[in-house]
């Protein structure tokens, strides 16, 4: 048990408590805030994994954009939030069962597998390498471009769907 393991446990607790809050809290607005907490925790995990760029992107996009949008949507549809609204459907028991069993099976598998891990230091110019890899012809330029097209399409689609007639 050293410092980073301690930090990891702390962050994991934040992530999982936040996630539990997301799915369990009756107040949807609070659930969204828990979601943000969870996102921030995940971002911390990324820093622990020495992926600073991804951590920042996580903050910027998940917290700064997606979570904000969710909160915004909740505010727009706020009339529906009445205390008697039970935000849990009739199959929640089945869902819980599936989730728990799935976790058990996954944990079992994960602990069984002997992962081919290898110790190495993250290179100094990891971010520059990432940037290169995203635009280099023989690496990931195609997924990158496809992703940008996807974003574009999603943007246009969202505008059209949400536009008032």
């Amino acid at each position, binding site marked *: 048990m050293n410092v980073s393991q301690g930090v990891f446990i702390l962050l994991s607790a934040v992530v999982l408590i936040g996630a539990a809050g997301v799915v369990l809290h009756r107040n949807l607005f609070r659930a969204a805030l828990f979601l943000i907490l969870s996102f921030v925790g995940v971002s911390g995990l990324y820093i622990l994994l020495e992926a600073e760029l991804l951590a920042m992107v996580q903050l910027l996009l998940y917290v700064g954009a997606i979570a904000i949008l969710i909160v915004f949507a909740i505010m727009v549809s706020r009339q529906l939030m009445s205390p008697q609204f039970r935000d849990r*459907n009739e*199959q929640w028991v*089945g*869902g819980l069962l*599936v989730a728990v*069993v*799935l976790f058990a*099976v*996954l944990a*079992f*598998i994960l602990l069984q597998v002997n992962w081919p891990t290898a110790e190495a230091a993250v290179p100094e110019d990891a971010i520059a390498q990432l940037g290169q890899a995203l635009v280099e012809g023989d690496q990931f330029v195609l997924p990158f471009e496809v992703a940008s097209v996807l974003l574009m399409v999603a943007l246009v689609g969202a505008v059209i769907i949400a536009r008032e007639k």
Partner: protein
Amino acid sequence: MTEFFFNLTWLIPLFPLASFAIIVLWTNRNRLLSTWIAWIGIGLAWILGWAILFLAWGHSSELTPPTHGYPVPLYSIPTGTTELQLGFQVDTLTGLMLFMVPFVCLMIFIYSKGYMNYGRENVDPRYSRFFAYISLFACGMLGLVISDNFVTLLIFWEVMGLCSYLLIGFWFDKSYSDPKRITPKQAGLKAFLTTRIGDVIMLAGMLLLYSQVKTLTFREIFSEETLHHLATTYAFPGMPWATLCAILIFGGAVGKSAQFPLHVWLPDAMEGPTPVSALIHAATMVSAGVYLVARSFPLFVAVEGGVQLAVVAFIGAFTALFSSTIAVAQNDIKRVLAYSTVSQLGYMIAALGIGAYVAAVFHLITHAFFKALLFLGSGSVIHGVEHGHHETHHGSHGHEFDANDMMNMGGLLQRMPVTGWTFIIGALALTGIFPWAGFWSKDEILADAWNAFQHGGHFGVSSGWAFFVWLFLTLAAFLTAFYTGRQIFLTFAGTPRTEAARHAPESVPSMTWPLIILAGFATFLGLFGTPWANQFYQLIGQKAEVLGEHLPHGEFNPLVAGISTVVALSGWFIAWLIYGREPLTNPVDPLEKRLGRLYIWLKNKWYFDELYMNYIVHPSVRLAQACFAFDDKLVIDPLVDAFGRFGRWLSEWLKDAVDIPIVDGIVNGVGSVTAKFGEFMRATQTGKVQNYLLVAAVTVLLLLVLFVVRA
């Protein structure tokens, strides 16, 4: 650079094809745009074609046919044990065709704008469609000349067949009061079916060839081993495969090039619009037949002194003479030209039949130019006369006026000087007057025939045949000069015989410019093939040693040239005597009186149509009817009735015994089970996404568990 352009060869037919597609699919409504698209398509093909020609010229020593083309392979079709290589090729013969085809097509396309009355109130309602069709037509011919195998050649060949059907029957709604006169619809059908006979024969030849040599690619068929193999194996005694296949393939050429006895469709093809006639008769379709024989020439000469060359020579020479006799007695300006085309094609075929390969191709090229000129000129004349008719008879279409009839013309040279003079230039070229193009090419054929007669022919052509060919062709030349002169004097000389001719205006510039340009070519093109500096020989004859012998090179023979010139001039002179000296005033041909029954015989085209009608078409129809009557009334009907009665009885029985208790029971049972099951399953179809998601999650979970257990 050269290879770059050669590799682009496949684009040439694609340009007009694209024009066709664009016009048909999108721009049909916009006439001007359709015109321009067709022009641009053929124009690009022309530019690329000439680029390829000039590059091929530079490399003529490597690209001489038959086997030295530059291959542009496209794809191969697996056909069981072998692969069918399809593609294009560039050699000098292709290059020559690319010199002629796209350019003449371009001229015709430009001319068509005016001919179809663009921008006037009587513009053709199917104007854009016309341009689409002729684009497809050009595509067919261009694709044909660059094919390097019989398969694509046949495909493009049939494309042209289709287009000829569509275009000859272009005015399919036209009908005449004279029931005996053929309508465009019938003419199209006739052309299509007649050429189909030839095509079937040709297909048979191709299939036999394929069965023997397992390939249809020219360079492989015309290789020395293959030809040797074909020449030494026998289909049946006395008939090597090469001879059989050559004769059968020649059948296709006979159909396409309207040779005797399948010539009947071509004059009737005049029912189509005149640019189409020009397209068919000059640039594309009928030359395809000659081109086919020229292309497969090695096959024709694979057997020394075989019967196939004799067949070719005889049919060609006979057709040349025979159709020119008919032309003498025709009054329709276009029909005269049509028979003249048949006759000139006979020249080419006959030339090929005596081994005069270079001369045949030379004549093919020059003929294309001056015949296109003549057709377009005649179209211009018809157009002018029609306009004159419209002007004098405003809106009244009471009686039928035939603008094609030369008896309705006369004195048009004053009214239409450009058309007239260019037409005369074309006529001079056609009749082989020095120094127009026809003189050189026709003379080369005659000289070759004479040489073969004098010194024995190449490829085992006997000198008797050669003399026969020479004689027939010389007679044909005389008749050609005569009927051409008759045409000129009837149409342009003298005074107008009708009001329509009196008011005929000169055509619009988009029609006259192509005439002028083509007239230039008709005048000067022959200089490329003079016996002293024969560029054509340089291009396609030089390296023909692979054929086993030197190709005959038409040396200048003053005797032959003198005879043919004298013959031609005398033809003109007699025409002048009859028609030119005292211009006709009444629409009665003076020839009719002098020739009597012979004239009637010629006017009715030796009664070939009637012959076919009476001895082939009617018997076939009658046979079909007889078969129908026999089959239907005596055999089929009772049989069918009996089966019907039996079936009825059987089904009645089955219904009671089997259908109601068993089949119905099963069906209803299945139905009710399905319905019950559906009721049950319906519960799972909640329409709620989350339920489905849960099912999916459970499924994934089960698979995962399965994975764990199995591992």
